[in-house]
């Protein structure tokens, strides 16, 4: 299976807000304690965005919008990643690029 990478994806995502996922050290605490059991968020999907996997945002839109923004992961993140703000940034990106929401 071949995947087309977009090296500029993370810069496009950052146009809509903060995205500090590069600070993640991949320890997995966030995944382990997520009340929703979102295996892909935040760690997996954030890394896919950093790699330029635009297809991941399309495939996992429901996961992106299933996050409770409850900050349990952020409270326990040893790297201090602003996880919920990153999720909101991805939502803004999806709203703009996939849902065509130009907003006010």
């Amino acid at each position, binding site marked *: 299976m071949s995947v087309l990478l977009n090296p500029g994806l993370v810069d496009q995502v950052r146009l809509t807000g903060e995205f500090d996922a590069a600070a993640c050290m991949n320890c997995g605490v966030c995944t382990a304690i997520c009340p929703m059991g979102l295996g892909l968020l935040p760690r997996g999907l954030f890394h896919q965005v950093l790699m330029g996997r635009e297809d991941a945002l399309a495939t996992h839109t429901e996961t992106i919008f299933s996050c*409770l923004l409850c900050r349990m992961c952020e*409270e326990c993140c040893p790297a201090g990643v602003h996880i919920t703000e990153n999720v*909101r940034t991805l*939502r803004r990106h999806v*709203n703009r690029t996939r849902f*065509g929401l130009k907003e*006010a």
Partner: protein
Amino acid sequence: MAIPTGDTIGILSDNLRLRQSVMPIPKKRATGWAKKLNLPRGGPTVIYTGQMYQLIPYIETMVAAQERLASSPLAGMTGLGRRMNRFVNIMRFMARPAASTAAEYDRVLTDIALLLQTAGVDFGYLYEDDLYSGALAHDLGLDAVVALHARRVLEAFKRHGVRSVITVDPHTTNMLRTVYPSLVDGFTVEVKSYLEVLTTKSLQIRRDQTKDLVIHDSCVLARYEGVVEEPRQLLRAAGVTLNEPENTGRLTWCCGGPVESLYPEKALANAQRRVDQLRTAGPEGVTMCPLCLANLRRGAAGTMQFQDISRYLADAYVSQTEVS
């Protein structure tokens, strides 16, 4: 067939932009709770509801309508619904809550106002200018429309000479205290939750609340705003014995409410998991957020009782004649 996420978000965004709320409700319904209190209009300090408690009965009926819609052929026509909604508020036809449910949530607001009056706090109310905060739209990443709306709220505060607001729910507290200053230049209004205000006042106990309660912290109040001790202090002073469940305080477990508008079945599953945790600590739970209250009640399905913290505090600190 699931309702397309983009269409739902689009309708919520259009509603906030065009009608000042993600779920516009009649002004009479939003302000009716204050009818008998004769609160002054505006002033330097106001109670600010952000319409959150008033919205819950409508959200409950809307979720039921969404579930019916998702299992009907109409689920594929929500794009058309969104276009129609720009001209007429389609939620008016979908959500009509029972009067008894609305009265129960209105009572929370009345109790909070009476608590503040009992504590000697001088405050007014903005009535039809007490606008929804935009919390759900902010969660969904609709920042531009939220910024537009925050400027409306700031204008309302300026018109009424407001310098400080007392909020009644965690989401409005977070929006006004933390989010708005980052979106709107010159938003310098002081914002405190009524729980924070009450802990600074001297309250006399009128009826001892000798009971055991399981406390459920709101994620937004505990983790976003750092308010953990205040509700405990007020309840313990009233005579309540608090039972702390697994996952409490800053490590509280979300009720699931934040995803209810898009994925009600996921919200319910999460609420059921949280109720399982809470039930092991006792049969009666106390909440401090309207979303938590509604979602945990739904998750418990009668196996555990939940009340808003204001009910216990009003029973303890407000004179009987005023409460009734």
